[in-house]
C-alpha cells in the first residue's frame, strides 16, 4: 500500500471529472460516430425538453440510457465490492462472493428459459437476489444476530463460507437450467450471464438506477468510520463504541441490494466489483470514507469504458460489456501491482 501525496478531495474530483469525460466518450463513440459539437447540441436540446430528430438526437436517445445504466451498474458493483472486502477483511471478496448474484442469475435464467420479456427477467433477478440474501441471513444467523458472537474468531469466515456455499448451489442449479433450456434461448442466456447493457433502453429506469446508486453510496458512507475501526479488529471496534453486529447486518443487506439491482439491470458483469476497490486503495490508502466513493466512481468509469469498447471494436456487432471489463481491468491492475 502506498501513501501518495494526493489529497482525498482532489482524488475524488479527478475521478468525477474522468467519469464525465468517459460518459461523453460513451455517447460519442460507437457504430455510428457523431461529432462532439452535434452531440453536445443534441444533449442540451434534450435537457431543455426539445424533440429534434437529427442523427445526433437519435444516437443520443439510444446511447444515453445505456451509458447511464452502465455507470450505475459499475458504481453499484464497485461499492459492494469495496464494502465486502472491508467487512470480511478479505482482499479476494467481490460482489458475487456471498451468492446474491448467483440467486439473481438463477432466477433470471429461469425467466429467460420460460420466454419472459426484459422487465420480467429483471424482476425475477431482483427476486432471486433477495431470496439469496434471506438465505444467507438465515444460515449465518449466529454470526449476524447473536450478541457478542460476532466477536468470536472466525465469524467473518463463517459468513464468507456460507456465501460461497450459496453461490455454489446457485451455480449448480444454473447449469441444470442451461442444460435443459431450448437452444434458441441459449444465446440470450449467455449474454445475460456475461453481463450485457444491450437491454438498457429506458432513460427513466437509467436515471432511477443512477439515483439509487448515489443513495446507496450515501447510506454506506454513514458507516464508513465504523468500518474503519472494524478493520482493526472487531473486539477493539466494539469496545470503542461500534455496534459491530448491526453495522455488519446493515452493510451486508446494502451490498445485497446494490448487487441485486446491478445484476437485474445488466446481468452478472464481472471483475469491476473486485478490481475497482483494489486500484483505489493502492492510490489513496484504506480510509473507507474515501475508498467507498472513489471505488464507486472508478467502477462507473470502468464499465463505461468497457461498454464503449464493446460497441466500437467490432461494430456494428455489439459485444457484451462483461466480456470486456476484465480486458480493460486486468492490464491496469497488473500495471499497478508492478509499480514500486
Amino acid at each position, binding site marked *: 500500500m502506498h501513501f501518495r501525496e494526493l489529497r482525498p478531495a482532489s482524488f475524488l474530483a479527478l475521478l468525477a471529472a474522468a467519469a464525465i469525460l468517459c460518459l461523453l466518450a460513451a455517447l460519442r463513440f460507437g457504430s455510428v460516430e457523431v461529432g462532439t459539437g452535434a452531440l453536445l447540441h443534441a444533449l442540451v436540446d434534450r435537457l431543455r425538453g426539445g424533440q429534434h430528430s437529427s442523427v445526433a438526437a437519435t444516437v443520443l436517445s439510444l446511447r444515453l440510457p445505456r451509458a447511464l445504466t452502465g455507470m450505475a451498474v459499475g458504481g453499484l458493483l464497485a461499492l459492494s465490492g469495496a464494502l465486502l472486502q472491508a467487512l470480511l477483511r478479505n482482499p479476494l471478496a467481490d460482489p458475487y462472493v456471498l451468492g446474491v448474484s448467483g440467486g439473481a442469475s438463477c432466477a433470471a435464467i429461469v425467466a429467460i428459459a420460460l420466454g419472459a420479456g426484459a422487465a420480467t427477467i429483471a424482476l425475477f433477478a431482483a427476486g432471486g437476489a433477495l431470496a439469496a440474501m434471506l438465505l444467507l441471513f438465515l444460515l449465518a444467523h449466529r454470526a449476524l444476530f447473536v450478541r*457478542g458472537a460476532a466477536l468470536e474468531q472466525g465469524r467473518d469466515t463463517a459468513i464468507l463460507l456460507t456465501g460461497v456455499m450459496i453461490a455454489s448451489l446457485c451455480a449448480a442449479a444454473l447449469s441444470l437450467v442451461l442444460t435443459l433450456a431450448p437452444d434458441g434461448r441459449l444465446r440470450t442466456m449467455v449474454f445475460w450471464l456475461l453481463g450485457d447493457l444491450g437491454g438498457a433502453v429506458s432513460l427513466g429506469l437509467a436515471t432511477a438506477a443512477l439515483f439509487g446508486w448515489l443513495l446507496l453510496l450515501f447510506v454506506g458512507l454513514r458507516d464508513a468510520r465504523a468500518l474503519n*475501526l472494524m478493520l482493526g479488529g472487531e473486539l477493539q471496534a*466494539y469496545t470503542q*463504541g461500534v*455496534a459491530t453486529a448491526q453495522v455488519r447486518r446493515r452493510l451486508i443487506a446494502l451490498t445485497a441490494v446494490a448487487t441485486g439491482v446491478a445484476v437485474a439491470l445488466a446481468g452478472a458483469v464481472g471483475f469491476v466489483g473486485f478490481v475497482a476497490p483494489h486500484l483505489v486503495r493502492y492510490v489513496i490508502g484504506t480510509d473507507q470514507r474515501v475508498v467507498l466513493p472513489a471505488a464507486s466512481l472508478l467502477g462507473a468509469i470502468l464499465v463505461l469504458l468497457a461498454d464503449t469498447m464493446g460497441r466500437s471494436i467490432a461494430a456494428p456487432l455489439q459485444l457484451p460489456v462483461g466480456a470486456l471489463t476484465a480486458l480493460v481491468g486486468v492490464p491496469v491492475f497488473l500495471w499497478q501491482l508492478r509499480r514500486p
Partner: protein
Amino acid sequence: MTKALLACRGLDVRYGERWLVRALHIEVGAGERWALVGPNGAGKTTLLQVLAGVRAPDGGMVELGGRPLDRWSVEELAGLRALVADRWFDPFGSRALDTVMAARYRFRFATAGASIKGGDEQALARQCLAAMDCEALAHRDVRQLSRGERQRVALAAGLAQQTPLVLLDEPISHQDPRHQVEVLRELSRRAPCTYVGALHDINAAARFATHALLLTGDGSWQAGASHSVLTQERLSPLFGTEIVQVQLDAHRIFVSTGGVPA
C-alpha cells in the same frame, strides 16, 4: 458505603468445559487499581473480556456504574470503559496519530464541527501519545513500529477514549525496563482513573496496584488489598513455584527461586 464503579456479583466464567472463576464477588471503587494475577491460562484475558461486556458471563452478573453490563448500549459502554488488548490487528496501514484519534469514535457527533478544524482532537491525541512517551511516533505507520512502541500507541488510544474505567491486558508485556516503570507510573498519576489490569510481573503489580485478584484457574480466587494478597505465602502455591519476598528500602521485591513450594 460508597457505590462501586465495577462490581462482580456471583460471577461465573467458563472457558469450554473448564470453570475459570466461580462465584466471584468483588467491588472495584473509583480510583482503585486492581491487578489480576495468576498463572498462564488462568483466565485473566477471558475475565477482562467479561468485565468489558464483550463476552457474556456464564453465571452471576457484572455491574458497571450501578447498572448490569447488558443494560448499557454499546455506545454507552464505550463512554464507561476502555479495553487495551495486547494483540493488535493492523491489516492496513495507518498513522499512529490516526489510530489514537479513531478511539475517539464515541465523540464523533460532539466533535463533528470541531473536527473540521481538527485542532482540539489532534491536540488531545498528541497529549495521550506524549503521556505514553511516543509522541515522536505520531506520523509513523503502526505496522512499522516495534511491539513495545505499538503497545504504547494502543495504551494512548485507550486513554484517548477518556473513560472512568480502563481495562488493561498485560499493558507492559513488551516494554523495556524504563518504560515498564514509566507507563505504570503515568497511568497511576491519571487519577481519578480506575484500572483493572492483568499483570504477569508480580513486582510491577505490587508497585502499581492498590488491590489484587489472584486467579488459580480452577475456579477459586482470592481478592483484597494488594499488600495483604500479594505475599510470598499466597503467591508460591498460586504459581506452583517458590517465591520469596525481599524488602528493599520501601519496596517489596518478589524473587522466584525455582524451588518447590512448601
